[in-house]
């Protein structure tokens, strides 16, 4: 069936794969009709997809450095786009984004604008030039452009801080899904998740991760779009929700007026706290009520814009994204590939607000059979889906005013429930819930793989090979790379099993860390010839230190926000200091030597050989 080169056959291979996956969904649907249990369906979805990823990982095994680090630089634009989209969209994007929009509305949408707008910076400022450079890792660029081990090492440190903050959340997400689907305790499920992640990346490095990420993208996008379209059609909201939900958005606005968006009083919140109290060792309730209007502008311009700026600059400095563009065959392909990446991301991001709208309306509208607001509390508590999700600690009703009817401010839900529970509320078959679990798993695994690989590659290539043992043979380098992969994976899993995720903070911090330390050293490395080693060192070190110091000032010492810069946007402090330090120090010290200046000139034109050799 398949003849010739693997790369030439990619559309065919993934076409068959997609067909196979759709057939699998249909088989599961038939199984459900014939009485297959929910548990069995969930297990089949997660086990089957993880098995396929592991198989791809094994088929992509390699003993060559350029295949391990940059997938042999032969990934076609569209496929690299899909892989980047999977790399990019984390378990959090998949499971929590629609929930964030549902509860926080406009203020949260800054993340959508930021996480997409950042790709314009990637395409225009960085990706094509770093591809021309021919580096294996992001610190490889910093180290070669500025020269010296200090700059290289600092880049590795910033990369590790940012990526590790991010990766524990991802391993945590795979653990959560594995523990629900396989019905095992979370402490074990985390390691099941980790082993699945490592199976994709350990043997094939970047090559293995690339081809599994493409497969994971296909699963996650089907798992996200199918329910959105299905629910929209079932509710009669329109067959193409993206273009047809204006009436629904307006209707939510009317209902909000009718029910009134009420902030709960401290007494009511105390009642809520009492109702959600847990024993030590039990999972916590993380619930919110609707306190913001759905489509109104509810944040100040600066709040919105500052968050968007941080996410955009962070996107352009996160190494696990940047390194995906090192795998394209040419500079031209790298540019186009950024466009494809954003297109594939857009498919999911533009659907999240639609899902939030559908989910909210189906719960709020009394004229719909699924609407619960205004119904009697006992009636709601008797609903099958309410009981399930209440047991999962994702839904709660409270009769604060004691009138026996459910008011808008008396219904609480976890952010994940919007994606996880809406199919069930809308009355879709359970097979869709199994599909959503597989999609969430794919999203979390693909991002975790990209991040772990980014850290391990930077340490193995830039610290071990470039600094410690430059004469090491390829086989030895790849052993070191793989050992590091496992060590970092286990470190991440251990941290998330201990449940100290809160200490490491949110995924958003990863963007601020990356932006503080790396944004200007990377951009100025290409766009400002005069930038030199001393400047870059000052920029990275002072950027990271000042950003972190500001975060500690806010979080640990409860300091007041300066200029409206909060914990989610501390990168603005870090990056500003980084820019000033880098410019001032560069100008105070001597210009880079002629060879470096020539190197920058060469990076700026696509033609000719890359700066670093194909194998280095």
């Amino acid at each position, binding site marked *: 069936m398949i003849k010739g080169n693997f790369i030439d056959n990619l559309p065919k291979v993934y076409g068959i794969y997609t067909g196979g996956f759709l057939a699998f969904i249909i088989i599961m649907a038939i199984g459900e009709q014939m009485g297959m249990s929910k548990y069995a369906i969930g297990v089949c979805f997660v086990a089957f997809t993880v098995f396929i990823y592991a198989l791809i990982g094994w088929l992509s095994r390699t003993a060559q450095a350029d295949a391990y680090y940059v997938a042999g630089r032969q990934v076609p634009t569209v496929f690299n786009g899909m892989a980047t989209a999977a790399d990019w969209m984390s378990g959090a994007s998949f499971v929590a984004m629609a929930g964030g929009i549902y509860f926080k509305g406009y203020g949260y949408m800054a993340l959508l604008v930021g996480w997409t707008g950042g790709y*314009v910076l990637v395409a225009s400022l960085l990706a094509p030039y770093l591809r021309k450079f021919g580096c294996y890792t992001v610190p490889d660029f910093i180290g070669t452009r500025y020269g010296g081990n200090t700059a290289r090492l600092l880049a590795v440190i910033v990369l590790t801080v940012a990526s590790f903050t991010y990766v524990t959340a991802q391993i945590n997400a795979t653990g959560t899904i594995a523990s629900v689907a396989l019905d095992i305790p979370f402490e074990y499920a985390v390691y099941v998740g980790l082993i699945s992640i490592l199976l994709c990346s350990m043997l094939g490095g970047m090559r293995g991760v690339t081809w599994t990420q493409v497969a994971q993208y296909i699963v996650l996008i089907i798992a996200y779009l199918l329910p959105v379209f299905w629910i929209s059609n079932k509710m009669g909201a329109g067959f193409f929700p993206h273009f047809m939900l204006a009436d629904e958005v307006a209707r939510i606005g009317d209902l909000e007026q009718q029910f009134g968006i009420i902030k709960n009083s401290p007494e009511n919140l105390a009642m809520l706290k009492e109702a959600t109290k847990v024993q030590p060792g039990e999972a916590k309730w993380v619930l919110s009520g609707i306190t913001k209007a759905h489509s109104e502008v509810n944040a100040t311009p600066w709040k919105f*814009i500052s968050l968007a700026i941080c996410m955009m600059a962070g996107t352009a400095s996160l190494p696990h994204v940047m390194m995906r563009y090192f795998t394209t065959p040419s500079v031209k392909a790298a540019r186009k590939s950024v466009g494809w990446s954003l297109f594939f991301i857009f498919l999911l991001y533009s659907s999240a607000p639609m899902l939030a709208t559908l989910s909210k309306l189906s719960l709020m509208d009394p004229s719909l059979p699924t609407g619960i607001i205004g119904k009697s509390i006992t009636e709601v508590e008797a609903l099958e889906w309410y009981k399930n999700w209440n047991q999962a600690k994702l839904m709660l009703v409270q009769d604060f005013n004691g009138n026996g009817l459910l008011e808008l401010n008396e219904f609480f839900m976890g952010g994940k429930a919007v994606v996880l529970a809406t199919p069930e509320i809308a009355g879709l078959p359970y097979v869709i819930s199994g599909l959503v679990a597989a999609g969430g798993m794919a999203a979390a695994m693909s991002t975790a793989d990209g991040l772990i690989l980014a850290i391990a590659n930077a340490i193995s290539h830039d610290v071990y090979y470039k600094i410690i043992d430059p004469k090491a043979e390829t086989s030895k380098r790849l052993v070191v790379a793989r050992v590091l992969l496992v060590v970092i994976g286990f470190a991440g899993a251990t941290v998330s099993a201990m449940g100290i995720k809160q200490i490491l903070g949110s995924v958003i911090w990863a963007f601020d860390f990356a932006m503080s330390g790396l944004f200007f050293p990377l951009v100025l490395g290409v766009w400002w010839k005069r930038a030199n080693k001393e400047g870059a060192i000052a920029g990275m070190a002072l950027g990271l230190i000042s950003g972190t110091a500001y975060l500690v000032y806010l979080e640990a010492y409860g300091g007041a926000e300066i200029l409206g810069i909060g914990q989610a946007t501390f990168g603005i402090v870090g990056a500003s200091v980084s820019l000033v330090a880098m410019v001032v120090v560069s100008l105070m010290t001597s210009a880079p030597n002629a060879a470096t200046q020539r190197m920058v000139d060469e990076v700026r034109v696509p033609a000719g050989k890359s700066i670093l050799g194909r194998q280095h």
Partner: protein
Amino acid sequence: MSKQEQHWEKSKGLLLITLAIWFVFSIGIFLFGAEMNEVTGPFGYPLTYWFTCQGSLGLFVVLIFWFANRQEKIDEEFGFSERGDD
């Protein structure tokens, strides 16, 4: 000016245009978020709401492809494009 300098001048010009468009749709319009939301946008959504859901996001996709094509033309014009196919 050498060919290489001319190429870089043109590339910088393209970068500035690209970043200007990017700035308008990622930052500029949100300065007037509240006012703009009073207007009905495409498909009947409130305008600011539409930009955050679809408008800005989709525009960035188009912008990147447009930028890539223009940059390719500039590279070809000065004979700096890569040889070989991809």
